[in-house]
């Protein structure tokens, strides 16, 4: 996209106050996911980001919103999230009932990027509104108002999904997933990850290398007693604590070991790994 157009779109969205990403978020591209996302956006295709928690999916979306100069509406899905929460509802004011757009309706009107984080956490009835928006209809039915919103070409729907969950209730249905272009995320190669941790936290290269090594050790334990290994996000947390002057082992215990497990023996083992590395 050329610079002039970017500037123009940035200015032409008065309603998008607070939704524009003003400063470039730090994101380290790994495999061409940026080009893929851009291509999907240009072709008005929705995107599914797949990958373990804390590996950079949300950061990637922020980066892409900045890059494409679109407002970003993020919804963290939870198990009480209903279709009405997404689309909107009537609120009662002093004299009348007033319609209030939900994040989805707002994103469609603005031509924003709508990011539904951890989509499987949401109620099943949300698929009713997601499906027509995710296929070539690109429409949102606001049934309470009898309104049909047609998404502008700039609008994009992105959802994220962590395939590692072991719950049959949290599997993404085929009918949903087959509407999306999938981008697979995983933890970056060790060197890159160390660079990311250093860059995000300001920690020195040696320490970030050790943190990444620790992360790999915990990822070795995935399926051997841990549900997930330490994510890049946890490493950044630990690194920030260390930069603040917290003793490295205490920082790793607090930000990594305790975050990963409650099981005493596993906790002890992760603690020993921490003290082996530092």
């Amino acid at each position, binding site marked *: 996209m050329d610079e002039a157009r970017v500037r123009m779109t940035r200015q032409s969205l008065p309603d998008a106050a607070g939704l524009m990403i003003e400063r470039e978020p730090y994101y380290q591209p790994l495999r061409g996911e940026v080009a893929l996302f851009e291509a999907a956006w240009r072709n008005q295709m929705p995107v599914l980001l797949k990958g373990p928690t804390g590996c950079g999916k949300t950061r990637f979306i922020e980066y892409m919103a900045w890059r494409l100069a679109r407002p970003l509406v993020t919804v963290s899905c939870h198990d009480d999230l209903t279709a009405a929460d997404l689309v909107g509802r009537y609120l009662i004011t002093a004299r009348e009932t007033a319609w209030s757009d939900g994040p989805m309706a707002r994103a469609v009107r603005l031509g924003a990027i709508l990011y539904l984080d951890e989509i499987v956490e949401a109620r099943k009835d949300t698929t009713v509104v997601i499906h027509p928006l995710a296929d070539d209809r690109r429409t949102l039915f606001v049934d309470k108002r009898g309104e049909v919103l047609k998404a502008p070409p700039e609008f994009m729907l992105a959802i994220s999904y962590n395939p590692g969950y072991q719950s049959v209730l949290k599997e993404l249905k085929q009918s949903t997933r087959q509407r999306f272009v999938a981008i697979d995320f995983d933890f970056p190669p060790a060197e890159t990850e160390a660079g990311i941790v250093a860059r995000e936290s300001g920690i020195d290269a040696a320490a970030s290398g050790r943190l990444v090594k620790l992360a790999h050790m915990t990822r*070795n334990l995935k399926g051997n007693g841990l549900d997930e290994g330490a994510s890049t996000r946890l490493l950044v947390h630990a690194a920030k604590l260390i930069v603040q002057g917290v003793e490295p082992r205490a920082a790793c215990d607090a930000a990594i070991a305790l975050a990963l497990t409650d099981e005493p*023996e596993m906790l002890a083992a992760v603690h020993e*790994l921490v003290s082996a590395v530092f």
Partner: protein
Amino acid sequence: MNSSARFSDNAPLDAAEIEERFEELVGAVLSSRRTATALSQELARQPRAVQEFTLHWVAITARSSPELAYQFATVAPGAIGALGVAGAEKWLLEAMDVFDREGLYRAAASLKDLAGFIRQARAQAGAVAFPEVARVLEHFLAGLSGRPMKLEADDVPWTDTDTVYLPRRITRYGRREENFRAYKVTAALLWAQARHGTFSLDAKRYPGTAPGLALLAALESIRLAARFERELPGLHRDLELLRQPAIESHFEPVVKALRSESAGVADSLLALQRLPADARAPDWVFLGRLEPQRALGVRAERIARDRQALQSAVARLRAEMRAADGGATAPAEAARLRVAVREMPGDAQQLDISLELDGRTMAPTPEVSALIESILQDLGELPEEYLVAAGDGAYRTENAGEPAELVPGIEAPAEGLLYDEWDFRRRHYRKDWCVLAERDVQPGDSRFVPAALIRYRAEVWHLRRSFEALRGEDRRLRGEPWGDEVDLDAAVRALTEMRSGAELAERLFVRRERKLRDMAVMFVVDMSGSTKGWINDCEREALVLLAEALEVLGDRYAIYGFSGITRKRCEVYRVKRFDERYGGEVQQRIAGIQPLDYTRMGVALRHLTGILAAQEARTRLMITLSDGKPDDFSDGYRGEYGIEDTRQALLEAKRAGIHSFCITIDREARDYLPRMYGAAHYTVIEDVARLPLKVAEVYRRLTS
């Protein structure tokens, strides 16, 4: 007898009274030359509590051995003074144990060695035993590198590169933390021997004598410690804390070479030759025994296994790729995998593996990554020939040896249901290949379930509570601050209130809370012969706890077992049908679950899929409890055929809208379960004893 009256007051007994009691208790070992007079006088000077304690235990001991009781009486006052009453009791009990085991002579000696007992008691306070640390250290070693190692207890620490053997207890230090540190460093060094090539040379090159091997172990520990210093500085600090005495001067000249980054076991052997003839291995707590012959054997076996597995994995990858291409692009030459492995600079432990097969880049499957890592650990490189597709892509090829004929007496039953079976070689079903009969489990011991419930009383209570929290209800909540619809009643009320001057109420919505658990669950229990013994006990107990929990939850469930022998005698056993209530009868059938024959899994799953699919439910779940891979002793079911047939049966289930999950205790399950169930659809329970609790836990996680 008058002693009972006197025992009630608090004045010490006098010597005559005590002597009378001694005569009564240990008279058999007294004589004119050996009287109880001196003893009694000594005891008469003690406080009443000590006297009573002594007489009490003399009476007890005398029942096994009057002589031991007499010996005890002679040293008791001193022991009580040194150890206190509780300590003295322990000391005596230990002597009685020795008596039971080794007889009077050793027991008396043990009583007399009071100083030894005190020393030991002090050490006991800080002692750490193997079972306390085994699981933590197993996780620890698995974390250090992806290839998990087993841990077992032995008299001295050593490793065969698959299993790390650790001492039964460590009592060298006074404090627990120090003894634990000794365990940890010992385990880490043994792990490092396997990881960093201590056993990578030809068997002939290792010293043949015990002192030589001990010296080599010490030199290797110096070499590996230097690696720790570079890669795991914290662990290295711990190791140095334990290095008592310090490295002796005759080691000094060789230390530098061993600490070099490129040092290998060959350098240690070289250093061994340069040591003076009188050099002795130091007494470092973390040193184990080197067993090169056994380690090399295990290593060679593993390398061969890994090689074969990798080659067939390559063949499989390629077959899949071809199938995806519709078989059109079959290259003429043999499939060749190119592997790019990058190491993190300065750190040999983190690998970045990428594959290229027939010119196409692909992400390695977890199985392939693990194999490549394992081979690299053993060989330090990936030999070219390992990457050539070989074999038919079988999972295991050693499973040959089917019996030539059917065991006599096994004939096809007169009637039964016919099921197809998937033949992966033909990529086609074999029509009506299996004959399956459904039977009831014979009721078992009616005491089993009540006993299990008592045994797991606390856990059952806990399970019921935690499952109660999951129980779903469908409710319309009125007067909510937010919701799907306007609550008209509340709105009208609020409006009137507002008109009369009150503030506008906020709770004006109707919210529907839907936590409906519309679920039907089928538990499938492996009743194959291999579950014999306590695995079967644990399976049955697991079912009891699960049933208790599910009764609270109200989920519909059924329990079926399966077994069979040959395709003509496949059997599915009813334990609890969906429409049956959980009660005495079902409990007895749970108790009656027995290990039977083989694990022909596919046909059983097909049959049970049919039953489950007929249930009206929003979520249908089939959970298999198993101890190994599918197996039957004839018709070539073993190995890949069985795995592929089961996989196919699970795919059919999936098409019928059934979620499948497998709970297994097979440590090797990671080799084949991902293929059958998918990466996230199984769990391996390492510790069979925890199966009963784990199954309920897994169920809760699966369905919440």
